[in-house]
């Protein structure tokens, strides 16, 4: 599981690549949190264009980052999920608090 980041106009984009399941979650979470702790931005976007698979582990991971960033008043967004991932996101109800852009 690869993760890349880019900051543009004070917005952080986190690009997820590959398959997000329980086998990669612990390391992915540590990598993202390590990065988030060191920077200050206005918005965070999870770009899923290159994410090929995600199950409910991904929901837990995104919710976790949402809570951390909410405490710092930074809203988060999701963009470009594929059909399979969009279905998981929709069933979870997560779009109510983390809009898709």
């Amino acid at each position, binding site marked *: 599981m690869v993760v890349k980041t880019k900051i543009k106009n004070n917005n952080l984009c986190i690009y997820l690549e590959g398959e997000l*399941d*329980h086998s990669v*979650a612990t390391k992915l979470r540590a990598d993202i949190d390590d990065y988030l702790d060191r920077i200050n931005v206005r918005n965070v976007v999870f770009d899923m264009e290159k994410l090929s698979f995600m199950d*409910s582990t991904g929901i837990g991971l995104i919710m976790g980052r949402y809570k951390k960033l909410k405490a710092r008043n930074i809203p988060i967004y999701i963009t470009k999920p594929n059909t399979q991932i969009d279905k998981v996101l929709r*069933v*979870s109800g997560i779009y109510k608090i983390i809009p898709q852009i």
Partner: protein
Amino acid sequence: MDNYMSFRFKAIAANESLARSVVAAFCVPSNPTLDIINDIKTSISEAVTNCIVHGYGKNTGDIMIEAEIKDDLFSVRVIDYGKGILNIDEALNDFYTTNEEDERSGLGFTIMKTFMDSLEVESVWGAGTTVTMTKNLNA
């Protein structure tokens, strides 16, 4: 084409994607849509992850997947021989999880219920859990 298989493997996280691939490869000859394959892969991922995270936790053990296709009806049982579930009704609730510290969402069973045509959970406390799901491959 009617078919069956059983697949037994070590309950480690690295085998989650293997389990998804094997079940998908088993279904593909019946020519389901990609959406149906994805629903099945996602549900298998949830069930297998549950065996590893909740069924075995820090312990090791085996996971067994028994699958069958009969007249386009796919049925699958995901079995572990781990901890078991005390209260199944509670476990099936949306957002219910016993593993909040690991950021589990409590949505595994919700996804299996929604993505598959049927879901049944049997468990013996201390002896393991069997999750049975079915889905029509050409609905």
